[in-house]
């Protein structure tokens, strides 16, 4: 009797492990297609800037778009925090649609690729989400804020940031946006930042724009966070966006006392101006309800609305929520406006883009309208993240 019971329990356990394991395995290895658009002139690997990440999960694709007219260089980072998907989707839209007339644009859709392969432990996140497109839909990995523990482990008791030795939360040892400027012999996350810093130096990048989303209970939201070198650029872009793009965006200055963030360290350690864009994502709010794909894509949540009515939020929200198209459109419009302001001020270092949908167009047609069908793409232009 006891043997039969144990065999039955063992069988149930095995079934649970197989189902869970299959789901985690499939999620970690889900292939996300990227159809390089007409503006992509080269696709290279991040390890070309630093061999120390060659062959690792974070040896990301870099899509290079080079215009015929010489000008400046811009680096766009999507997926520093993959659980903030508007950033990745905005870089996807740019990779598949942008054409550069002047200057060069370097795009990473998965700045921390390791973090795209895991979801928040204990967070009950969906493993993936699908963006509807005219040809069906495209599935993306959900991702997390931190590198996958399978790729970097264990975490220390306290994370000591290099080179400042500032003590940060232990888990942020796997946070790409706490590891800048990185170091060559550090953790995977630090080596990834180091490779990106080397890329910025080698390619003489003028501006780095790091794309993020934030919970509505976080005070830095709907903003351009700017290093002091980019304060004027961010202020002018903010005014222009608020006046002409159909949405408000503020400016926050990068605090000197908080280390490891892209808007602080890139500005301090390279010649580039560093900016970080934050869009509102109710999915991240602690007071949210069910954490599912619908919340991720619609940004609608009655509990977050209730928190807003009690004055607990730093951004407005109503029953319409913050749909993904609104958040992606904010990023594409903000990037375009920043580059327009920059190119007006520095015509010889200008970066001029066409083919990128702005805020109103993304909302009207949907993000999926700007994703290309991988089934119809020729082999040479098809890549995977």
């Amino acid at each position: 009797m006891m043997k039969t019971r144990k065999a039955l329990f063992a069988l149930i356990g095995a079934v649970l492990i197989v189902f869970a394991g299959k789901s985690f395995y499939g999620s970690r290895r889900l292939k996300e297609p990227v159809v390089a658009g007409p503006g992509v002139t080269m696709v290279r690997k991040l390890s070309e800037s630093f061999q120390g990440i060659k062959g690792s999960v974070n040896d990301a694709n870099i899509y290079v778009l080079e215009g015929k007219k010489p000008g400046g260089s811009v680096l766009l980072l999507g997926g520093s925090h993959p659980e903030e998907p508007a950033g990745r989707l905005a870089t996807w839209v740019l990779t598949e649609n942008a054409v550069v007339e002047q200057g060069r644009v370097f795009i990473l859709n998965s700045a921390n690729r390791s973090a795209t392969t895991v979801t928040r432990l204990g967070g009950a996140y969906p493993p993936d989400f699908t963006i509807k497109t005219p040809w069906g839909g495209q599935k993306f990995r959900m991702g997390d804020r931190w590198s996958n523990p399978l790729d970097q482990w264990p975490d220390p008791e306290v994370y000591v940031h290099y080179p400042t030795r500032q003590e940060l939360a232990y888990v942020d040892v796997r946070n790409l946006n706490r590891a800048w400027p990185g170091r060559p012999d550090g953790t995977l996350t630090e080596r990834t930042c180091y490779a990106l810093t080397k890329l910025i130096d080698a390619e003489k990048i003028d501006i780095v724009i790091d794309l993020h989303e934030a919970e509505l209970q976080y005070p830095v939201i709907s903003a351009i966070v700017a290093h002091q070198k980019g304060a004027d650029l961010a202020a002018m872009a903010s005014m222009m966006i608020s006046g002409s793009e159909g949405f408000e965006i503020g400016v926050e200055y990068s605090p000197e006392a908080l280390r490891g963030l892209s808007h602080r360290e890139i500005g301090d350690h390279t010649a580039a101006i560093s900016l970080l864009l934050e869009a509102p994502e109710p999915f991240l709010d602690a007071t949210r309800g069910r954490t599912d794909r619908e919340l991720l894509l619609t940004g609608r949540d009655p509990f977050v609305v209730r928190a807003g009515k009690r004055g607990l939020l730093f951004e407005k929200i109503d029953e319409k929520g913050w749909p993904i198209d609104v958040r992606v459109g904010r990023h594409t419009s903000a990037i375009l406006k920043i580059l327009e302001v920059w190119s007006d001020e520095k015509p010889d270092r200008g970066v001029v883009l066409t083919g990128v949908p702005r805020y109103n167009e993304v909302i009207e047609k949907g993000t999926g309208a700007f994703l290309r069908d991988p089934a119809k793409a020729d082999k040479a232009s098809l890549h995977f993240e």
Partner: protein
Amino acid sequence: MSALITIAYYAMTAFAAVLLIWNFIKGKRWQDEVLYLIVLIPFLLRVLRLK
């Protein structure tokens, strides 16, 4: 150093998994057996590098 710590961590995880399986086999009460199984799952998923 980091690689050594990681190897030690996986060795400890595997050891804990073996202990749990051993306790499951030796257990007398069905409640204990269910508990050992539930606790075992994340250990095995980590040893197999699935989660």
